[in-house]
């Protein structure tokens, strides 16, 4: 009897050792890949504190002296302070706009009147390469008298993220239990109220996902900002950082400082909404 117990004990221990070994190996592999994803960030951040010679000579070491000149030059000279707030405004406004539009439209597809053709029509936007429509889009804005305005850029951002948002939200909303909505109706809510009081709040994860992806797309966009809205005080941060490339020498430290400043808000937003994003993708986009 005790022999059997011994055997089982031994086997259990072996399994535990084996799984410990496996775990270590797994963590090492994951850790290595994680390192490769983090190294570029480290490089960008450290380079911002270095001189140009250091960037070329000792690319991966820590800076000799932590100089913030590059940051100051980028912030003040490059007008990053202004363009940072510009971009925050554009991105926030377009995210609000796109979420308003896509949540209502997705709800319609998911719960009110599904329409395959119309849904397919909206999904078409996922296929459109930006540069092909750049000039016709600007011509339209020009004809409407909206050239070089904030609203033109905000609408462009919203529309370019509309298809993706509708895609994510529709999938998520399809999985919302009908019973909840029916219960709301029975309680006397109109269709609109059922949406606002029940469906919308429940869709928070998907809204976070779509919102974050839209935000990041707007934040990183270069060409739309360059062509629609290059007026100095209306510049996006992407354009401002791009403009840091000088004519004679690439002051890499100023450029990386600018990139660092540009990355921070995107990373912050991402970190804040991470959990919801994961939930949104988990619960929602499941059934396609």
């Amino acid at each position, binding site marked *: 009897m005790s022999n059997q117990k011994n055997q089982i004990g031994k086997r259990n221990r072996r399994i535990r050792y084996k799984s410990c070994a496996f775990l270590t190996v797994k963590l090492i592999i994951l850790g290595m890949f994680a390192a490769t*994803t983090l190294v570029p960030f480290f490089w960008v951040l450290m380079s911002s504190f270095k001189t140009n010679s250091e960037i070329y000579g000792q690319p991966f070491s820590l800076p000799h002296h932590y100089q913030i000149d590059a940051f100051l030059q980028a912030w003040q000279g490059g007008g990053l302070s202004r363009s940072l707030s510009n971009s925050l405004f554009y991105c926030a406004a377009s995210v609000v706009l796109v979420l308003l539009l896509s949540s209502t439209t997705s709800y319609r597809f998911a719960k*009110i009147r599904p329409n395959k053709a119309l849904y397919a029509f909206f999904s078409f936007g996922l296929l459109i390469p930006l540069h092909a*429509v750049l000039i016709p889009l600007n011509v339209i804005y020009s004809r409407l008298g909206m050239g070089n305005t904030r609203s033109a850029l905000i609408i462009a951002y919203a529309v370019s993220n509309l298809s993706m948002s509708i895609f994510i939200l529709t999938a998520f909303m399809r999985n919302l239990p009908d019973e909840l909505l*029916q219960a709301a109706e029975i309680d006397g809510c109109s269709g609109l109220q059922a949406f606002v009081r029940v469906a919308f709040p429940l869709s928070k994860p998907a809204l976070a996902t779509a919102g974050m992806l839209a935000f990041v797309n707007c934040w990183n966009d270069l060409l739309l900002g360059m062509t629609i809205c290059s007026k100095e005080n209306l510049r996006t941060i992407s354009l401002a950082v791009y403009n840091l490339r000088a004519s004679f020498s690439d002051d890499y430290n100023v450029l990386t400082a600018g990139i660092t400043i540009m*990355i921070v808000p995107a990373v912050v937003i*991402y970190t804040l909404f991470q959990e919801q994003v*994961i939930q949104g993708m988990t619960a929602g986009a499941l059934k396609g």
Partner: protein
Amino acid sequence: MISPRSGKSARKRHERALALAFTLPSLVLFVMFMIVPIFGALYLSFTKWSGAGAIKYIGISNYTNLLHNRDFWISFRNSVILIVLHLGFQLTSALFFSYLLYRTKPGMRFFRSVFFLPSVISATAIGVMFSLLFNADLGPINFVLHELGLHDWALPWLSNKTTALLVVSFIIIWQFIGYHVVIILAGMKAIPEEIIESAIIDGSNTVVLFFRIVYPLIKDMLQVSLIFMVTGCLKAFDHSYVMTMGGPGVSSSFLAVFMYKQAYSRQKLGLGSAAGLVILLLAFLCTRVINWMFYHKDEESVT
């Protein structure tokens, strides 16, 4: 949704009105600022225009030009290579890492966040970063290779026809692995625990578990992933343009880079628009193919 109060037809009317109200704003903006420009591009593709002066109608000349255009076909080939590399490396890596994360309890959240991080950075920034890292004469990568004595490996990465394309492609692949990991991992996490547990009890090891159980159940997410991957490849622009300007020449140009250069550098808006529409068509075809591949698994198709 039957209510004891109103009649069925009133209900139906109410429904339709609501559906309209909910869809109309999106539809109007979408059509005005997305669809109309596409038709604008379509119109331009049949013309010859430098952006200034008269627009000259030339029929399908732009399209026949593309058929014989060396640069176009090289860019096309490069886009195809990009897609193949994505399928071979990004998809497999994403599946691998997703599965690894799925079967690893501690630190899963941390790794998932870290992997996703590069997707959040602008492609331009990534391009600038890596063109310095890969600079054959000044950059750290060759520096390290020389230090390690691997002189033959210290190639002129961005000046060599083949390596330029490969380097640009792998940087795009690397940047978005985390993005697809998040999508696929989400699909894996949706698999009910019981199925996994019973499979383990039945004695399946990790590998069998993946192929027999997990893979079939995440096909939906794979479809989503594939569509984003392939359409993303067809629209790929920033990395190539920033790192090599699509060069040397067109060796690392993708279709979108070709389109941009025709429209803006060569001032051939008609030809550029035609190329743009070709990209659109290809993206559409690829999506259909992907959907067809997954057809028998889907009741509601994605597009």
